[in-house]
């Protein structure tokens, strides 16, 4: 047994190394696909080796049924889901990962505190663990187990709410009283109390298992309460954070099972989520606490909320403007994803390039509903990534640009960010007004997520094209063909 134990450790080490190499390769556009495959291979290796190790002892029926069902569901979702629905899908997978960690911890607690073939009786969670293993102290196991339950459950229900919000099936910012900040705090305290009770006070299998169930239920409610109040446009932050949680859940489950591979892989994911969370917060010039608990306060805005001197335009006029343009920059936003207009943008861009016009894309870090959302949509439409520019790279270029076309974006190009008295003061924005002409394709003058006025719309060099993004681009393409 010793040799097979050393062997599995060697395989786990190899898998951990491959996960790191895979993530490293994800940092280059050319090597990324290979990197993902390396990580997938590492997973296969780890799961395969574990199956071989446990072959004689596991209930094959359960394992095969679970793996077959899970693979089928996962494969169908991965193949079928349109690219515009990617944020929802990532949120869903994320929740399932966190949920799995929760169930593992739950199963371990139940197993250790249940009736035993040798008749030994566990009075507490920690004692139950010590009847089975001596790698850690009992109270250390207890802490890891209740943390796994808490983080896993919050990840599961929080991600499902994020999924619902992104798919448009969950609206509003609370369910009855769920989602009120004071209640969230109370629920968290209640959950911690239950964790303490289940871990250290409850004696006997039945009491411990009931307390465990209570921890799970209350933590699930907490996850709902934490995500429900958060607005759609703050989703990039929330998804990144939940991504991090799913890693931390796997990590604490690693302590429950004393498995270093889970700790390594979980920490890598936890770190990745945290880095992305930080990038998203910086792109909005807000702290994480502000995103999670406060929301944007539009009431600090001063002045007239009505728009004056807005110039509306049409496809015909836009086509003429574009006909004369030597350089065009597209600024995509969430509206592009909603209208599924990425292919039309690419079609128009190709036409412009054929006419000798330089085409580029300016991507704000929080455009869309998850980090990198716009890049994926444009990649789907075969836009070469060399044409995509980050905020810092392109902001100086607008003043040398003939036409900027803002497609379904709003607050990421709001000049109010430069004013001290603004709700979005200090947020890095795309200076699209520096271009000779800025065309904004938008369905109406309604406010963006920040709920504030965008002075860009009433500037002299701004033309508003009131339409669905896809329809507007289609009409413009038709007009341009006729010129």
């Amino acid at each position, binding site marked *: 047994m010793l040799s097979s134990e050393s062997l599995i450790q060697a395989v786990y080490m190899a898998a951990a190394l491959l996960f790191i190499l895979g993530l490293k390769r994800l940092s280059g556009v050319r090597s990324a696909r290979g990197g993902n495959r390396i990580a997938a291979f590492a997973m296969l290796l780890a799961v395969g080796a574990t199956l071989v190790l446990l072959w004689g002892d*596991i209930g094959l029926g359960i394992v095969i049924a679970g793996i077959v069902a*899970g693979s089928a569901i996962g494969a169908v979702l991965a193949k079928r889901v349109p690219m515009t629905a990617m944020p929802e899908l990532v949120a869903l997978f994320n929740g*399932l990962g966190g949920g799995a960690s929760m169930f593992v911890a739950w199963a371990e607690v139940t197993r250790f505190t*249940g009736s035993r073939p040798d008749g030994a009786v566990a009075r507490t969670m920690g004692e139950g663990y010590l009847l089975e293993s001596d790698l850690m102290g009992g109270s250390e196991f207890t802490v890891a187990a209740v943390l796994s339950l808490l983080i896993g459950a919050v990840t599961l229900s929080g991600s499902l709410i994020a999924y619902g919000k992104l798919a448009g099936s969950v609206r509003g910012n609370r369910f009855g009283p769920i989602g009120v900040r004071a209640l969230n705090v109370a629920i968290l305290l209640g959950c911690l109390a239950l964790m303490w009770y289940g871990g250290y006070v409850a004696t006997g299998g039945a009491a411990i298992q009931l307390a465990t169930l209570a921890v799970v239920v209350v933590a699930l409610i907490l996850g709902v309460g934490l995500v429900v109040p958060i607005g759609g446009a703050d989703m990039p932050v929330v998804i990144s954070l939940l991504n991090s949680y799913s890693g931390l859940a796997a990590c604490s489950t690693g302590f429950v099972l004393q498995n270093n591979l889970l700790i390594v892989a979980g920490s890598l994911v936890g770190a990745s989520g945290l880095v992305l969370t930080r990038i998203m917060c910086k792109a909005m010039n807000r702290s994480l606490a502000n995103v999670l608990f406060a929301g944007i306060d539009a009431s600090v805005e001063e002045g007239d909320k009505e728009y004056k001197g807005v110039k509306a335009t049409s496809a015909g006029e836009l086509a003429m403007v574009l006909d004369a343009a030597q350089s065009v920059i597209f600024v995509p936003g969430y509206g592009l994803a909603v209208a599924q207009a990425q292919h039309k943008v690419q079609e128009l861009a190709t036409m412009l*390039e054929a006419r000798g016009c330089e085409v580029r894309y300016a991507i704000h870090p929080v455009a869309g509903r998850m980090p990198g959302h716009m890049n994926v949509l444009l990649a789907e439409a075969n836009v070469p990534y060399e044409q995509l520019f980050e905020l810092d790279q392109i902001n100086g270029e607008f003043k040398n640009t003939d036409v900027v076309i803002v497609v379904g974006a709003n607050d990421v190009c709001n000049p109010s960010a430069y004013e001290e008295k603004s709700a979005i003061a200090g947020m890095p924005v795309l200076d699209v007004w520096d271009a000779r002409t800025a065309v904004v394709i938008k369905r109406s003058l309604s406010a963006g997520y920040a709920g504030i006025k965008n002075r860009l719309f009433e500037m002299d060099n701004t033309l508003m094209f009131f339409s669905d993004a896809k329809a507007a681009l289609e009409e413009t393409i038709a007009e341009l063909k006729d010129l």
Partner: protein
Amino acid sequence: MTTALHAPALLPLALADGGGAGFLIVGLWVLLLAIFVGVELITKVPPTLHTPLMSGANAISGITLVGALYCAGSDYSLIVKILGFVAITMATVNVVGGFMVTDRMLGMFGPAKKPAKKQEKS
């Protein structure tokens, strides 16, 4: 897993809760170093790849599938088996779906396909 049932001999020492801190310390070291490596690696990923990064990382967090397999012992009680089954299914969806959708996304990030340089005089 099943070989660990030798524990009663160790009980007096272990119940005092001082004997078995071994894994915790090693585990915390591993955690610390892995987080450091993770931050270093992820900081270098360009924004273009943030979505595939997230879904790929997400698939890696399905590593908990390995843990779930340890919960599927044939001699465990029905409740444990059910919990284990749910864990295995959820984790497998996460792993298989996550890696496949990331691959699909990254397949679209082709290099420039030499477009539109045809001399088309307007």
